[in-house]
């Protein structure tokens, strides 16, 4: 029933994962399995690191032992250099998961007489492969051979044979090559590798260094042709996958409170959507960072992680300033839920920021990322570049279901204009605006948009106090919308008026009570009179009855005395 045919539905190119963060994503799985891959680039572009990381991760994460054949650096130097990147090469060598073979070529020691081939190299490499059962091989940098052997014709033929031989051995090979003038490699070796050629670039744009990776060719597979920015840091290479990001993210319905209860009320009663992007714009000093800090604090108080990328203030400055409005971020930093990363935007290029931010997100795995402010990014790129970089960042975070909050400084009174034009990327847009009147400046907050929820269209007064942010209803009345002192005055007037009305009612109540009393006493007087008359009437009736009896008795007595009969 289930034949082996079904298990391999399509004869696809098999790939070997490099384990290099991001690289496997842009290549759809890594480098072609069992084939040589050429990595070319200028000096310091990260070729050797690429090769070494390919081996170390292969040995460590994929159980594929590897051989590093170095034509340039001595094995001791290699081990030392890469130990600083956290690669325990010595350990892997001891476990026989990896071997480093340093090939020393000294032109002055070699004299050529007659025909030769590089069988010695083959034997040596073959022996090394067998000694650890290698599945991966790195040759760094094979072109060093050209300086060691004078006969280029033989060398070319032998290198071509070497690549074929590597294929026959079934090992996945990474071969590094120095970039030539106007060519990919100095000696045109890209002609010999038909399967996969990757170019690493390290260039300066406006005194800012940016590393980029480009897939020149990758036979039999679809790949992005873009340049992918990458980063070299203490954990190795990190390639930012750009095209792996599509508009395919899930849209969670779960809500995440904003940290300001009243703001939650404005946002349909429950706060932001989890995984959405939130923009807080405002002119200078309107409290954008305060709102961000509230959010951060509320996130951490629920035991979730928050990454705070600060581009304007240092970590301690933010902590100190936020303490003044009653938001203490220190405990969250101490227990590791809040991670600050404060850099000047000009530290490195936009792409590098993007890569490093992505890396931070990947390492820290936050539930919420705050960027404060994004407007500063304009100093390292044009608005269009910043927009595209942010879009990619937001998209990649959305894919992970991470909620993002950005603050953005806007200048002038035109509220709808963010300098970078990112507002269209945002799901929720809150703006904090200065309201100047009666010689004072107050803050008004309103929700410009919030996709997918019934949000308030009201302006709320945004008050920063020593116990945090409060949103207060603005005074809306005959005198227009009032805030600050004017609102207080108006409110106190209102209260006065209210009091007067209440007193009036009180007075009327009292009047009524006394009147009621008076009426009641009148009523009781009349009743007393009535009852007196009633008694009088009863008395008369009684006397009349008695008189009648008396009269009858007298009549009877009279009759008896007359002796009638």
């Amino acid at each position: 029933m289930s034949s082996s045919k079904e298990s391999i539905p399509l004869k696809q190119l098999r790939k070997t994962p490099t384990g290099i963060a991001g690289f496997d994503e842009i290549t759809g799985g890594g480098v072609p399995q069992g084939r040589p891959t050429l990595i070319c680039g200028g000096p310091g572009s990260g070729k050797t690191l690429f090769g070494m990381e390919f081996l170390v991760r292969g040995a460590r994460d994929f159980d594929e032992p590897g051989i590093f054949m170095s034509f340039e650096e001595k094995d001791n130097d290699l081990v030392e250099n890469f130990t600083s990147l956290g690669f325990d090469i010595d350990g892997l060598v001891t476990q026989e998961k990896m071997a480093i073979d340093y090939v020393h070529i000294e032109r002055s020691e070699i004299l050529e007489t007659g025909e030769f081939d590089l069988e010695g190299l083959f034997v040596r490499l073959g022996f090394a492969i067998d000694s650890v059962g290698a599945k991966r091989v790195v040759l760094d940098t094979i072109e060093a051979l050209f300086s060691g052997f004078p006969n280029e014709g033989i060398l070319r033929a032998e290198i071509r044979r070497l690549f074929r031989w590597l294929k026959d051995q079934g090992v996945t090979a990474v071969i590094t090559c120095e970039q030539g003038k106007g060519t990919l490699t100095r000696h045109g070796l890209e002609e010999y590798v038909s399967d996969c050629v990757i170019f690493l670039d390290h260039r300066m744009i406006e005194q800012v260094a940016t590393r980029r990776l480009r897939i020149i060719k990758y036979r039999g597979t679809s790949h992005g042709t873009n340049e992918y920015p990458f980063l070299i840091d203490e954990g190795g290479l990190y390639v930012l996958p750009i095209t792996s990001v599509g508009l395919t993210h899930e849209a969670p319905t779960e809500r995440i409170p904003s940290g300001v209860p009243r703001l939650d009320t404005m946002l349909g009663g429950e706060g932001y959507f989890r995984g959405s992007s939130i923009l807080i714009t405002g002119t200078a000093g309107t409290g954008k960072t305060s709102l961000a800090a509230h959010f951060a604090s509320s996130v951490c108080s629920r035991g979730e992680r928050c990454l705070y990328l600060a581009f304007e203030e240092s970590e301690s400055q933010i902590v100190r300033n936020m303490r003044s409005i009653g938001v203490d971020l220190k405990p969250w930093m101490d227990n590791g839920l809040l991670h600050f990363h404060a850099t000047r935007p000009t530290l490195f290029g936009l792409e590098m920021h993007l890569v490093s931010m992505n890396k931070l997100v990947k390492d820290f795995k936050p539930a919420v990322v705050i960027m404060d402010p994004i407007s500063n990014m304009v100093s390292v790129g044009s608005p269009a570049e910043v927009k595209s970089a942010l879009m990619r960042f937001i998209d990649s975070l959305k894919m992970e279901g991470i909620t993002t909050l950005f603050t953005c400084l806007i200048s002038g009174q035109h509220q709808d204009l963010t300098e970078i034009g990112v507002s269209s990327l945002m799901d929720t847009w809150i703006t904090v605006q200065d309201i100047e009147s009666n010689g004072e400046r107050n803050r008004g907050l309103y929700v410009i948009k919030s996709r997918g929820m019934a949000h308030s269209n009201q302006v709320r007064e945004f008050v920063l106090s020593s116990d945090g942010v409060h949103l207060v209803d603005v005074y809306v009345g005959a005198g227009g919308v009032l805030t600050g002192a004017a609102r207080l005055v108006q409110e106190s007037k209102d209260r006065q008026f209210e009091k007067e009305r209440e007193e009036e009612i009180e007075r009327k109540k009292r009047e009524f009570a006394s009147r009621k009393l008076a009426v009641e006493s009148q009523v009781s007087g009349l009743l007393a009179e009535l009852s007196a008359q009633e008694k009088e009437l009863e008395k008369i009736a009684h006397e009349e009855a008695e008189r009648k009896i008396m009269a009858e008795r007298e009549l009877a007595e009279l009759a008896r005395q007359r002796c009638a009969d």
Partner: protein
Amino acid sequence: MALSGDNPLMGDEETAPEKHYELRLYVAGQTPKSMEAFANLKKICEEHLKGRYSIEVIDLIENPKLAKGDQILAIPTLVRKLPEPIRKIIGTLSDTERVLIGLDLRPRKS
């Protein structure tokens, strides 16, 4: 490994008649190239180093480990272990003049 001119033992076979030559020929299997190299070497040695040389032939197919020790890449490679410094001559050794130069049996033309 630049040769320094003030070394009296170098330059001419006549100046160092007592020097013993320890030679090692690396091959990989019995290939025509290896055979040719060995034949050429034997001939040169018999002519120029009679009685004061030894040749060790190392087949890397049998002893792949040894390739690393002398940093052998090209096959065939002739290594002059003694007298020092170590010198390597690659190829079939068909160019006798160059071999003699490589073995310091002829002064080098600068």
